[in-house]
């Protein structure tokens, strides 16, 4: 039986998905690969799970954030900046594990896929629990939620939405989505340690006596995502079309200052 852990009827499976193993890439390249995967899943309907890290500390802006808002966060002012296609607030990608999961959705589905936030975050919380870290969704902390329109802190990790994972009162995992007609891309950041460029934000390893490594975490997250989403994740690579598409998207969009400063 698949999908028994979160008790939701949103399982995809049983089905086979592609797992793109942990790798490090540049800021614009990372975003371009996620977009190329979204385009690919829109065409093929085959789910893709990817783990990645960043070749240099990077500030990513949410799709609708104004570039000028960078001035409100001096600590990250000098690092590389990229604009995401997903919503939410700015993230300093430095001491973190980043994931993206892209799945098909029925044509005509509307709005965010809340169940994907729930299942992905549950999978990461279960992995953290195996190492003695108790992470809970913000909606279960008993803290009064803020409406989105007032959730206007510059940094994503200073905002709170229902499915964000909280450890000892600190947000350690946040995710965002981009929809196409028949697929949704969700990517998110698990903070591992405090970054010099966002010193106000602790990561899970700052709250532990024995630090966790990404090598320990990733296999457990994959296993949990397999059970929770009903997907058998098989290690694969980016296709040649995805590589070509990602290169074009990188050059034309994410590496372009016109794109980054468009708002």
């Amino acid at each position, binding site marked *: 039986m698949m999908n028994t852990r979160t008790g939701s009827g949103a399982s995809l499976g049983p089905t086979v998905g592609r797992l793109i193993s942990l790798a490090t890439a540049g800021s614009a390249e990372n975003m371009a690969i996620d977009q190329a995967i979204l385009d690919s899943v829109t065409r093929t309907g085959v789910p893709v799970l990817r783990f990645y890290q960043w070749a240099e500390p990077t500030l990513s802006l949410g799709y609708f954030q104004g570039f000028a808002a960078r001035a409100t966060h001096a600590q990250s002012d000098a690092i590389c900046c990229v604009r995401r296609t997903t919503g939410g607030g700015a993230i300093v990608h430095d001491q973190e594990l980043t994931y993206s999961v892209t799945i098909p959705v029925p044509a005509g589905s509307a709005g965010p896929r809340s169940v994907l936030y729930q299942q992905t975050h549950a999978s990461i919380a279960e992995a953290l629990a195996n190492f003695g870290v108790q992470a809970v969704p913000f909606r279960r902390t008993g803290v009064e939620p803020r409406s989105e329109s007032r959730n206007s802190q510059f940094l994503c990790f200073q905002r709170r939405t229902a499915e964000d994972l909280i450890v000892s009162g600190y947000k350690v995992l946040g995710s965002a989505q981009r929809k196409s007609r028949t697929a*949704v891309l969700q990517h998110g950041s698990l903070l591992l340690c405090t970054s010099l460029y966002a010193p106000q934000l602790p990561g899970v390893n700052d709250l532990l006596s024995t630090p966790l490594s990404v090598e320990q975490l990733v296999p457990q997250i994959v296993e949990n995502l397999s059970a929770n989403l009903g997907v058998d994740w098989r290690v694969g690579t980016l296709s040649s079309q995805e590589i070509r598409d990602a290169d074009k998207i990188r050059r034309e969009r994410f590496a372009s200052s016109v794109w980054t400063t468009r708002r």
Partner: protein
Amino acid sequence: MSRDESKLLYAESHEWVDLAEEDGKAVGTIGLSGFALEQLNDLVYMELPELGRELTAGEEFGEVESVKAVSPLYSPVSGKVVAVHEDLPENLEKLNDDPYEFGWIVKVEISEANSVESLLDHAAYQKQCAEAG
């Protein structure tokens, strides 16, 4: 007086169209259905197209953000954007209360009459929404 939603046409992607004749031209007023707005849940941003932009039926003409998810808006008809509801992005909280009047997004002068043929009537759209749960 608000539009009668039972008289509108709908795209599978949840945009409604009110077809009318203005100065001898076929014009479609386009918005997002009440069902879509419920699913979107607390819209925080909306991006509108430029006046004069030529759209093809099914093409993205704008984007919205809710719960950190960015979703495209798809044009249900082909034609030229002749009016844009400029006040809407700053007043998204009013959308849920009045999706069919205050919630109009753009008006499109329809260039291909047959681009409306694949749209759903209200009963067919209601059925789609019921099946989507």
